[in-house]
């Protein structure tokens, strides 16, 4: 197997995730796209870890999974708060601080 096939798959998933973050208006869907981005990064970490036959990259992939869990918890709490206050989770409507 080539290293590049994993890195390119990861790049494709990353780009799709960035598209999702920018194009989606629903707050929950934006959080899901962020998970896609984090998973693309994890593929990179594990691929380089396998290339060098060390476990450092895998350990950091585990840390990224833990941080992603924390991020989803706080992010969904914020989306719920938003829904409770404004009856909408459309992120384009949150423009109070727009210049």
């Amino acid at each position, binding site marked *: *197997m*080539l*290293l*590049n*096939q*994993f*890195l*390119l*798959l990861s*790049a*494709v*998933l990353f*780009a*799709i*995730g*960035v*598209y*999702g973050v*920018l*194009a989606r*208006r*629903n*707050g*929950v*869907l934006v*959080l*899901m*796209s962020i*998970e896609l981005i984090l*998973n693309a990064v*994890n*593929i990179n970490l*594990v*691929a380089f*870890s*396998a290339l060098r*036959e060390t*476990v*450092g990259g*895998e*350990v950091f*992939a*585990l*840390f990224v*999974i*833990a*941080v992603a*869990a*924390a991020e989803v*918890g706080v992010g*969904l*709490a914020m989306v*719920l*708060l938003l*829904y*409770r206050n404004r009856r*909408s*989770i*459309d992120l*384009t409507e949150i423009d109070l601080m727009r210049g």
Partner: protein
Amino acid sequence: MILAALPGFEPLVSGDAVVAQNIAFGILAVVMVAAALRMVTTPNVVHAALYLVIVLAGVAGIFILLGAEFVGVTQVLVYIGAIVVLFLFGIMLTRGALGEDEDAATEKRRMALMVGVLLLVVTGGALLDSFGDAAMDRSRPSLTAEIGDSIFSQYIVPFEAVSVLLLAALIGAIVVARKE
């Protein structure tokens, strides 16, 4: 190693194994990219969460293909088991909160598409340029014992930082989401 003692065990670098790995990678990659594209385009939020499950399972398969079994199993447990359930709860609690207004989103979508394609071209070109044909010939999967040793010796400080972060996120989520 214990694996090498099993009957029928072959090193991961033998010819047949490499062909099988490439076929598995191809199937996983096609399924994952298709599911990811559907995830960011489908109008149904619940379907998006289910497509996310397919992508996450594919990533777990890629991890196992790379010989990182512990990370693959953790991916299934934490992502598919916990995070997706959290997403489904979030979707159900905010159901029907978004009126569909497709016309206003077209411009935004076109810009997002441009950014995504540009990002893919730049990163893809850089990757092809840098790692042209670097081959991976891993002889054995990584052992969970090695990962445990590594976490609790070399990476003990980041590990403790992550545990404090999880506690802070737990308290933060409760404080943010509670009713007054």
